[in-house]
């Protein structure tokens, strides 16, 4: 038995192929080789136990049990295959024909199929086998009929999936008839899952048929199949377990062969479906290689001090370094905007600070201090407590960041109960207060997230962050998933919180206009590095990095000339898989010179609070229009 092309030759695939091939060979040659000894009675060897001549003993007429089991491979397999082919054929025909029927007839058949599916196929098969009369043909037909509703339903579901696709709509527009649609477009597209189900059903069918024979509803003496042999063997299981075991093992072997084949085929289908998961090569818990404690000198009065942060992520095509050499510092009560395109590494920077990077990521940094404490120097338990109470994260999409199964009260109180040892009553009182802080009534405590609007959910997230009274709030695109009107409410709320609690806020966004409006200082990130840091009030016309300039120029305002196209940045960010030397912005930069492609510019002070990583910063007086236009 050869494997279909494209099938991965895994050990499992080999095992399935070998087992199935052996079954086919047995079915072909079994009756020829062992048929004679299987039917030869021997009055001198009746009901014997295992011996050299009869490894599994003999039956009540002295016939060799093993020979009978091997010979029975053919009827057992043939009957099962016949049943599954008949059942699948009829079911697929019925299911597919409903796609051609009118709406009412389709609903009626679907209803009927559902009604029949309420009953287990084995029970239906038993019932029908009684009606059709005990015997091989009756059992086979009963089993086939019992399988029809399942296949019909599957075909119907699959066909409905295809019916919604674009190319079928196009074919319909072209005026193809229903039958042609079915034969040319629907069935070929669902052939693979149907084939897969038929394979699995072959195994089920074999087991069910053996079950019917075991009950006495299937093959009748003097004929025999595995189920019937098991029935005979079981009658004397107390005296001789082996004659009962032999046919049982045969059924088990065949069932496993089909099960394994289905597994291999399904795995193969899945592999060609969605993209494979990123393999994680080596487990790397919190910052491995583990940085030494200490790092750079601690600076007094900083909420967050990060120096030389690097993140490495595994991808199917090799490791990438989406963050390299990021340094930043926040003072109490400060709002700092971290701005950049998607993929610039700003979210990963936040996750690295909060120790929330995905599995397999590697972090290194010279310094990482939160509220003065060196995180690398803390024991894991203390570090958890320190991060949980010192830092609050607010994520992009509050609809997915809140647990749909838990009440707001639970989600608000659990952190303080775990880390501050607050009692339930005390924590609930604090939660009501936190909700009041974000202008939500205490009744929200009893709600679940799906009962709230998007803005309300983000307020709940913020309230949840406030519960631990953090020194630092990292808000990762907290307004991106929200309506524009709600965005302003959230930023205003964050400003108020900053004012009232003197927590520092690291506000991450791709929206340079929003950041410029709402933050005090701004970090501009590009391709994993910070390219410019400057006070927000200088953003509009004091930015020195060509990238910052281009970002600012791409924001439309009320004075923008609407007859001219909005300036955009040509080109794309560098591919993280193939890092090139030199300034990462060089290929897109209007001011590039030969020097830029070879040497990476360091982040250097231009003035107090203003640093830029560029060999040829834009002159301060320059008109932003010239940058965008060139």
């Amino acid at each position, binding site marked *: 038995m050869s494997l279909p092309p494209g099938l991965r030759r895994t050990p499992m695939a080999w095992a399935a192929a070998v087992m199935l091939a052996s079954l086919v060979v047995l079915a072909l040659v079994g009756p020829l080789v062992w048929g004679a000894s299987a039917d030869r009675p021997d009055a001198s060897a009746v009901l014997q136990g295992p011996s050299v001549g009869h490894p599994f003993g003999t039956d009540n007429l002295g016939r060799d049990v093993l020979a009978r089991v091997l010979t029975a491979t053919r009827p057992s397999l043939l009957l099962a295959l016949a049943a599954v082919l008949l059942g699948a054929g009829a079911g697929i025909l019925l299911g597919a024909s409903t796609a051609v029927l009118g709406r009412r007839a389709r609903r009626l058949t679907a209803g009927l199929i559902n009604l029949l599916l309420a009953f287990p196929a084995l029970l239906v098969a038993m019932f029908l086998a009684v*009606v059709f009369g005990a015997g091989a043909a009756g059992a086979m037909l009963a089993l086939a009929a019992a399988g029809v509703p399942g296949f019909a339903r599957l075909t119907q579901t699959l066909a409905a999936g295809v019916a919604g696709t674009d190319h079928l709509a196009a074919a319909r527009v072209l005026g193809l008839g229903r039958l042609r649609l079915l034969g040319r477009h629907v069935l070929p597209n669902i052939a693979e899952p149907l084939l897969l189900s038929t394979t699995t059903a072959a195994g089920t069918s074999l*087991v069910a048929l053996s079950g019917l024979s075991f009950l006495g509803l299937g093959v009748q003496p003097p004929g025999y199949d595995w189920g019937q042999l098991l029935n005979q063997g079981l009658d004397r*299981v107390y005296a001789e377990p082996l004659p009962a075991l032999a046919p049982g093992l045969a059924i088990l072997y065949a069932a496993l062969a089909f099960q394994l084949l289905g597994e291999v085929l399904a795995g193969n289908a899945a592999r060609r479906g969605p993209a494979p998961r990123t393999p*994680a090569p080596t487990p790397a818990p919190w910052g491995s290689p583990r940085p030494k404690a200490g790092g750079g000198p601690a600076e007094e009065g900083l909420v967050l001090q990060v120096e030389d942060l690097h993140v490495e992520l595994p991808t199917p095509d090799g490791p990438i370094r989406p963050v390299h050499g990021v340094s930043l510092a926040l003072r109490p009560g400060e709002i700092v905007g971290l701005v950049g395109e998607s993929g610039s590494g700003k979210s990963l920077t936040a996750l690295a600070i909060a120790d929330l990077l995905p599995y397999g990521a590697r972090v290194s940094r010279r310094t990482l201090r939160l509220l003065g404490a060196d995180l690398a120097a803390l024991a894991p338990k203390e570090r958890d407590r320190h991060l949980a109470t010192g830092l609050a994260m607010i994520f992009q999409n509050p609809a997915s960041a809140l647990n749909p199964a838990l009440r707001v009260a639970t989600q608000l109180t659990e952190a303080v109960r775990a880390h501050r040892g607050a009692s339930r009553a005390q924590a609930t009182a604090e939660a009501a207060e936190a909700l009041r802080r974000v202008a939500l009534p205490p009744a929200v405590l009893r709600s679940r997230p799906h009962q709230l609007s998007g803005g309300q959910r983000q307020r709940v997230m913020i309230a949840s962050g406030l519960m631990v009274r953090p020194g630092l709030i990292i808000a990762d695109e907290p307004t991106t998933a929200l309506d524009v009107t709600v965005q302003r409410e959230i930023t205003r709320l964050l400003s108020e919180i900053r004012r009232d609690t003197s927590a520092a806020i690291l506000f991450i966004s791709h929206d340079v206009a929003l950041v410029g409006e709402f933050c005090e200082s701004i970090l501009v990130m590009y391709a994993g590095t910070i390219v410019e840091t400057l006070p927000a009030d200088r953003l509009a016309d004091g930015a020195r990095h060509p990238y910052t300039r281009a970002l600012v120029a791409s924001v439309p305002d009320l004075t923008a000339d609407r007859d001219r196209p909005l300036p955009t940045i040509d080109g794309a960010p560098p591919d993280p898989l193939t890092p090139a030397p030199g300034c990462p912005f060089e290929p897109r930069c209007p001011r590039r010179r030969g020097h830029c492609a070879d040497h990476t510019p360091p982040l250097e002070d231009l003035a107090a609070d203003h640093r830029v990583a560029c060999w040829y910063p834009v002159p301060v007086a320059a008109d932003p229009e010239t940058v965008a236009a060139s």
Partner: protein
Amino acid sequence: MTRGPTVSVPRLPRHPWTVFLGRRILRLFLSLAVVLTASFAMIRLIPGDPVRAALGVDAAPDLVAARRHALGLDTPFLTQYRHYLGGLLHGDLGTSLTTGTPVAELVRTRLPATLEIAGLAFLVTLAVALPGGLLVAVRTRDGRRPRSELAFTVVTAGLAGVPDFVLAAGLTALLAVGLQLLPVAGAAGVESFVLPVLALSLAPAAVLLRIVRMEALRVLGEDYLRTARSKRLSPARRYLRHAAPNTATAALTVAGSLLPALVAGTVLVEKVFAWPGIGSAMAQSVVAQDYPVVQAMVLVLGTTVLLAGLLVDVLLAVLDPRSAIREM
């Protein structure tokens, strides 16, 4: 949208429960009608004369005629159907052809034994698969321990393919007869439950383990688990309180779909262990061609399956009200 401090908590449609239960019970009645009609029609559809078949070819003609009359087989079809339904309403399930005892009596003595092993097997399936699937998902998430994952896949695929009655026969041969550890057959004491329940629950547990693991892997990748991580909650709280409830709906839906096959499986497994339930009674009467008993057993098993399905659906609707809405 937020309008100041007022919060409008949207509610489900006005009478979701009435609508859900109404539809679900309507479906139950339709299915019951199928079972009733099928079980009634069975004895009439059988080719040849079931009474003669049961009594033997050399039975006296007047005895056959008397039995046929007793069964009402000599009256018009619709009259028979009316009598059948009327009899059912009074708890009359007919009379056994071989023993002459009322079938209702047989059902009353045998149904509890079947429900016991089927129910226990279902509970064992849940008790193994729900925590087990979650545990394996946690251990193998994000590509951790790829070898354990492969082993899990192969082993559960194999176990899911083990036919219940073959396992039952194997267990009997090995544990009961070979090693003489457990009772071979019959229902006597707690230890007699072990083998039938094991045989019935092994394959469903393997199937459910895989489903729960897949579902738990999906949930573990959700944003809200990252939120839980950002709160530095203990692993136990993250997995049990945050992940587990979100896997329950899918897990129970699949578990519910495994239940009918489990009930049907009792017929074969009871035969192996001579378990005094509905299934072994059905197996015996099939061989003896005692059709009134087969008819009643089909009716009882079919109804059991339908009621179990209803129970699962209602349970799901209680646990996850959204599933009730999806149903409609």
